[in-house]
C-alpha cells in the first residue's frame, strides 16, 4: 500500500464524515461546514487521481476549480443563513417547511 492509497482512503473517510454530518445536522451553518468536509475529500481524490496517472498538474487544476466552487457555495450558504436568521429567527432547517415565495 502506497501513500497515495492511504490518502485516497482518507479522502473517502472525509466524504463519509461529511455525508453523515449532512444527515444528522439541522443547523444551517453546520450544514455548510459538513459540505466543506465533503468537498475536501473530493479535492483530495482529484489530486490523488492525478498523481496515480502521472498528471498531477491536471489534478491540481481540477482541484482548484473545486476549491473555487466550494468557496462560492460556502459564501452563498452563509449569506443565506444570515438572511434566514434575520427573517425567521432560527437556523433550524426543520423549521423551513413552510417556505413562502
Amino acid at each position, binding site marked *: 500500500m502506497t*501513500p*497515495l492509497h*492511504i*490518502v*485516497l482512503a*482518507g479522502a*473517502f*473517510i*472525509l*466524504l*463519509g*464524515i*461529511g*455525508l*453523515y*454530518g449532512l*444527515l*444528522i*445536522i*439541522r*443547523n444551517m*451553518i*453546520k450544514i*455548510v*461546514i*459538513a459540505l*466543506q*468536509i465533503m468537498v*475536501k475529500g473530493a*479535492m*483530495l481524490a482529484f489530486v*490523488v487521481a492525478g*498523481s*496515480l*496517472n*502521472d*498528471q*498531477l*498538474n*491536471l489534478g*491540481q*487544476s*481540477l*482541484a*482548484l476549480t473545486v*476549491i*473555487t466552487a466550494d*468557496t*462560492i457555495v*460556502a459564501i*452563498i450558504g*452563509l*449569506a*443565506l*443563513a*444570515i*438572511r434566514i*436568521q434575520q*427573517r425567521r429567527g432560527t*437556523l433550524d432547517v426543520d423549521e423551513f417547511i413552510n417556505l413562502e415565495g
Partner: protein
Amino acid sequence: MLTEVILMAVAAICGIQAVRAVRLLHSALWLAGVSIAVTLVLYSLGATTIAVIELSLSVGLITILLVFAISMVGADSPDQPVSRPLNIPFVAAMLLLVIGLTVPLLVPQGEAAEDNFAVTFWQQREADVLAQIALIFAGVLGVLGLLTETSSTQPAPEVTREQQQPETAPATIEVAEKPEMEQV
C-alpha cells in the same frame, strides 16, 4: 507513509469533531483543523500550488467567514444532531457505491506529457477558467442580492396604540361637530 497516515487520522478526527460539536464556533475551528491537515497532505503529495491555495482560502477565508457569520447570527445557537437508525447504513452504502465507481478508474495509464501547472491550467483547462470567473460573479451577485438591505424586504415598523391615538382623535371630533353645524 507514516506522515500521511497521521495526517489523514488528524483530518478524520477533526472532521468528526466538527460534525459532533454542539457550538458553532467549535465546529468552525475543527473545520480549520481539517483544512490544515488536508493542506499538509497536499504538500506531502507534491501538489504545492493547490496546497497554498487551500491554506489561504479554506483556513483563512472560510474560517473568517464562518466566524463572521456566527457573530452576525448572534447567539452561538447550539445544535442537537438528529440520530436516525438508517444513517450509518446509508452512508456505508453510498461510500461503497462511490468506491466501486471510482477506484477501477484509477489505474495508471502510462506516461503522460506533463507541463507545468500554469500551462495546464491556463491553456488546457480554459473552460474551467471561464467557469470559475462565472462562479465568482455569481457569488458576488448572490451575496449582494442576499445581504443588501432593500425597502421591499424590510418589515413594516410596528405602530403602537399611543402613536395611533393623535391621528384618530381629530377625526372623532370632526364627526361630532358636524350635526351642530347643520342645526345652525
